[in-house]
């Protein structure tokens, strides 16, 4: 069960109700991801940020256009995505880290749980990168299969 409604954070950040800290930006990204909103992610991330997710092809997305297209392609096959973090997101001045589980249910009915670690790094008050670390051994057999 998710311990934070990330979509609310996204909305609050978008409406200016929250300040732009690594933790709130990370929460907003997670909320937009769970909402499968590629445009929201693009607007959140900005033009000079990097998003990395193994098992996504390509697994490094740089800049607004790639970030939008990459997420849009991924969301086409997802029925539902949920991040669950048993412990609070940790934060310092320039970064936030969350560790938990990512549950992906695809439109073909297949559901997988992956241990996940998410890192958000800021530079000069702007989001610089989001990196997702996934333990996907349960589906990474002998092919470079994507999870999304």
């Amino acid at each position, binding site marked *: 069960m998710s311990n934070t409604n990330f979509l609310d954070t996204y909305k609050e950040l978008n409406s200016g109700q929250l300040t732009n800290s690594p933790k709130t930006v990370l929460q907003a990204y997670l909320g937009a991801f769970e909402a499968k909103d590629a445009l929201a992610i693009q607007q959140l991330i900005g033009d000079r940020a990097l998003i990395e997710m*193994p*098992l996504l092809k390509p697994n490094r997305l740089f800049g607004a256009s790639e970030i939008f297209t990459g997420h849009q392609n991924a969301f086409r096959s997802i029925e539902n995505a949920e991040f669950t973090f048993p*412990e*609070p997101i*940790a*934060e*310092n001045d320039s*970064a*936030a*880290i969350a*560790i938990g589980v990512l549950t992906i249910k695809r439109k073909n009915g297949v559901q997988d749980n992956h*241990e*996940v*670690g*998410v*890192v958000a*790094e800021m530079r000069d008050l702007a989001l610089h990168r989001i*990196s997702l*670390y*996934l*333990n*996907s*051994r349960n589906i*990474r*057999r*002998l*092919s*470079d299969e994507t999870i999304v």
Partner: protein
Amino acid sequence: MKAIEAFEAYCDAWAKHDHVALAELFTEDGVFEASTLDAPVKGQKDLKSQLRIISNSHSNIETETRIAIETEKGAYIEGTYKANIVGAGGKIDGSPVRADFRYVATIEMQNGKISRLAEIYDSHPFYAEERQRVFAMNRRSPYWQGTVDAKCMEWSVYNNMFFPMVYSRAPYEDYAALMEGVTLWDVGLERQTQLKGPDALKFLDYLSSRDMSAMGSGDCRYALICDEAGLVLCDPVVLMPEEDLVWLSHGNTDLTLWARGIVLNSDWYVEVSEPDVAPLQVQGPDSIHVMNALCATPLDDLKNYKCTITEVAGQRTVVSRTGWSGGFGYEIYPYGSENAMALWNAILEAGKPFGIKVTGPIVHRAIERGVTDTDYYSGSNMNALEEVASHLVDLDKESDFIGKEALKKISEEGVKRHSVGLFIDGEVPRLEWHWPLRGGDGTEGIVRWAVHSFALDRSIGIAIVDVSIKVGDRVEVDHPGGTVSAEVTTIPFAPRGS
């Protein structure tokens, strides 16, 4: 100690290969989890064992901490780990096989020690993108799916059957499993030449350079089979599960065809065939526990080079105390392959408490013990007196055997080559084809096997050389990485159990 400080000590201990210091950073029941481990490692004993295996699998370890943030329970870390994989022999272009990855980690502390450290990373660097492609002109063993599920990456071909060789693990992990735990190896490619009938034993004795006349039901022997010129055809393990029934469990040679040709139009009262018997090897010190969990009768009294007929996981099977590891273990020969995967899965299930690993041939250990394979002989035009097991040639045995006259002549004239061990300077690439060797006086030889020895922490090899090259001599070896020096030594390199 605080979490971030503990993590710095953890990274420092990795760089120094100090698995004891690593383990001692944890509490008594501390837990280590990582994305390439099958299960969490818990407690000091298992921590020391598993961290040693990982540490010994890698060299030139470098770590970097990119982000470290304290949490209520300890810390979250983002970092990198970079290392060479030991004993992998390098890539085709000569570059080392690497274990490089980025990770996030969570650390939980208790009384200044790590109670839990979990690393999450993409395991992609450790697995092939796709298994080796194969062709339908060769056979698959009945355990094929089991080997694919266990992430076999590379196969060779042996007796016209795919031979699972390399799995997605560092070589030391397999070595440690063989030396300290238990391994399961698909050797369905070890075909049996079956001799059945009143002349089975006499015909066996005629095929083999070794005196086999005293073999009885339940016996196993290692033997050499030669052609009429005394050249080695293969080196089977011979089993006699029942009276008038012999199985020659042979290497990469069509021994059945050879034997059938000899029997054809002869007076031998023996039937030669290849039965549907696909063996497995269960090897390592814990193999007896796995086997006793599955066998109808306990195997504690089954002595080395003996066999018995029993049931394994409810399947009628011959079990022998033999194997290719140069150590303790069993070979399982089920009568028929129709329930092969049921047997495979039963062994894996019984092996779970012991951390059983599906492996290929653990060549590093075999070479340490001086164990070679059929190709060592048959691929080098070797006569039986030139090879490592030349003591299996019994020129004094009363009965005739194929190649006896030729070998007598060779013995009288003097053997021209012999097999020696080598300590090879530096690291060796993976031996894909044999390497030329030169003695001090220009005499030539050929390196047939070369690996990194984990027991000795150096490169070793087995070579066929001119008989003038002796133990203690230095020779030159040409391998893909260049010309290196080597010292001639005896075989085996390491005693049993070392």
